[in-house]
């Protein structure tokens, strides 16, 4: 009986020890630790904290669009979304009253999809109406052919189709 209890205690101690060792985080290597320390060290000659002025408004510096607007393009397809989520084939961009509307045709996995990005260029903040919209057409990427009003035209594996920027409906 004593042997059983003693064995149980040994097993318990070993189990606790193993559990403890498995929850220990290894410290970063010295070179990485030095990088961390550098990142958070305040320079000895740093200025004292500046006064805060929450009412300060900087001089207006209006954003200047530099690409050709209202044209479908299949070049320079740097979409503002990870390629793990969306692979673009084409894009169309416009700026109306300080709001940028960028529409991308492409695919989400194997499914055809449209990615819409609407941004207030003055505040730099996105419109909540942006997002990824996945078509239910047969698998294959969508390629934009034009945008008129709120209607996006595209070509996909099953032929031509449209996407409504307001209702987000595919036809």
């Amino acid at each position, binding site marked *: 009986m004593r042997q059983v209890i003693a064995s149980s205690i040994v097993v318990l101690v070993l189990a606790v020890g193993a559990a403890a*060792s*498995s*929850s*220990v*985080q*290894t*410290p*970063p290597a010295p070179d*990485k*630790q*030095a*990088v961390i*320390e*550098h*990142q*958070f*060290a*305040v*320079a000895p*000659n*740093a*200025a*004292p*904290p*500046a006064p*805060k002025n*929450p009412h*300060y408004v900087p001089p207006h*510096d*209006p*954003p*200047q*669009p*530099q*690409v050709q607007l209202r044209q479908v393009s*299949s*070049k*320079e*397809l*740097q*979409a*503002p*979304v*990870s*390629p*793990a*989520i*969306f692979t673009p084939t084409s894009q169309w*961009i416009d700026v109306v009253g300080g709001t940028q509307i*960028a529409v991308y045709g492409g695919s989400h996995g194997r499914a055809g999809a449209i*990615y819409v*990005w609407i*941004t207030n*260029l*003055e*505040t*730099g*903040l*996105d419109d909540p109406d942006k997002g*990824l919209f996945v078509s239910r057409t047969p698998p294959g990427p969508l390629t934009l052919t034009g945008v008129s009003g709120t209607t996006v035209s595209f070509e996909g594996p099953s032929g031509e189709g449209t996407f409504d920027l307001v209702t987000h409906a595919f036809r």
Partner: protein
Amino acid sequence: MLWGLVLTACLVRATTPAPAAAAYPYVTTSYYESTTSTSTLFSQGCSAGSAGAVGSIILDFGRPAYRAGAYGTMLFGSGGFASNVSILQGMKAFADGYWNCSPVRTQVIIARGTSNYCPEGSGCSLPTPSYTAAGSYWGRRTDDLASYISTSGYSSQETSAAAIDAEPAWDPDYTSTHDFIAGYNSATSWFMFDYGSLESGYWSNAAAYYVAYTGANFPFPEIYYSSMAASWESLELWAVAYRGAAMLVIGVTSEWPAGALTPHEGYDAMLGQLQSHASTYQSSIDYLTRIR
């Protein structure tokens, strides 16, 4: 002083047995930038400050580019080319906005983001003649923001860093990504977050490790699906076997709702993977951001 507390917490956590995951880090908002307008970037910084944002904020100015003797990037959307100098001016404005609008005890790392986008056949214009030089200049401008923060009296709440959305599929032969990072690390030692992906079939583990963890680089991976966390854990285990230790995953990037996982789900997926092996164990991950 406050940064000292952060560092102390980091050191203590790294050397003591850790509890199970506690509270999530604050979810900051990071941005794909269409402009370097100082008033726009000020507004974004003020928005972060007003919200009391704490952690790391990545301002992604797009892939490296070069025009008329100036290194810079191609912005997203309608932005076109932006020189490194104009990006620096925008980032200074972001720092101003955060400082003026934030409460007194919040702290952020402001990361100057780029990518390795420019896959073959993609028709990239204004290509960079030297990625090593591009990386070096990226580092110097990151230094310049650090100096601005220091001389402006923002050091108690802000620090400067860089970031790269490094996607293996965008640079299959890895050369330009390697050169950019080598150039960066030759110029400075501020954090360089790798907030990219690890899709298989492109880079060797040694290459992926270099991008994520050489010099001042730290992994800040995109976790949009559970499988992405598993890929990073696979690289962690390779690092243990071939580099002698796991990498410190410093942050998690989310792109919800376009990605399947919310920021907290992405955090849980990554931390769960790290905690699935004793050799890669982390008690927590410091930063969490949602890029949009």
